[in-house]
């Protein structure tokens, strides 16, 4: 069980980030979009922790940063959900395609 190189973590994080971005841009259901954004933020966490552990100059700061990221991600989801509820109350849908009242 040799230790995993830094690059592997970075690549996994990058893949996660891209999956999240893809989902956030293409999915119809707003909740799934919010989850995809979470995925992107978690990719960041992975990056931070990987750098913090295996980076060129490893130190604890990355982990602290990731704590903040987690918290703020949670707050973002909370606000997102709240807005989604308000939206749902008015329009009875969570579908992103229905957001078309505002036109160019």
């Amino acid at each position: 069980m040799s230790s995993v190189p830094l690059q592997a973590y970075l690549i996994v994080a990058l893949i996660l980030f891209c999956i999240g971005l893809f989902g956030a841009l293409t999915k119809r259901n707003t909740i799934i979009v919010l989850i995809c954004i979470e995925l992107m933020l978690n990719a960041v966490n992975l990056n931070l922790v990987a750098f913090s552990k295996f980076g060129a100059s490893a130190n604890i700061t990355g982990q602290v940063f990731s704590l903040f990221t987690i918290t703020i991600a949670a707050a973002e989801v909370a606000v997102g959900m709240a807005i989604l509820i308000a939206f749902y109350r008015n329009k009875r849908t969570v579908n992103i395609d229905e957001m078309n009242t505002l036109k160019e």
Partner: protein
Amino acid sequence: MESLNIYQNSYLFVIVFLFVALMLPIVALSVGRLLRPNQPTEQKMLTYESGMEPFQDARVQFHVRYYLFALLFVIFDVETVFLYPWAVAYEKLGVFALIEMLIFIVMLFLGLVYAWKKKVLKWR
């Protein structure tokens, strides 16, 4: 080196536990398949509704209070993320950490009071 081994072994152990925990239901259910009868009828497959004929879709809209509590949970649960590192490192940090965390907890409490006052905590 030893501590690293313990560290890695611990997680190996976790994997083993997860594996066993997964296998138990699978094995039990597979074995059970050989033992138990299987004669599904229309009536048996009907959704249970206290003996009445089921009506309407069961997937009713959840009451909004569930979401409110979910939001509260998300916020408070995550804020505790800060409490654990603080508690672990408290001895090394001293008075400053105490004051800082005091402010933090007061803010957190204010948030709770806010929710309380806005009648979010009421199970309506």
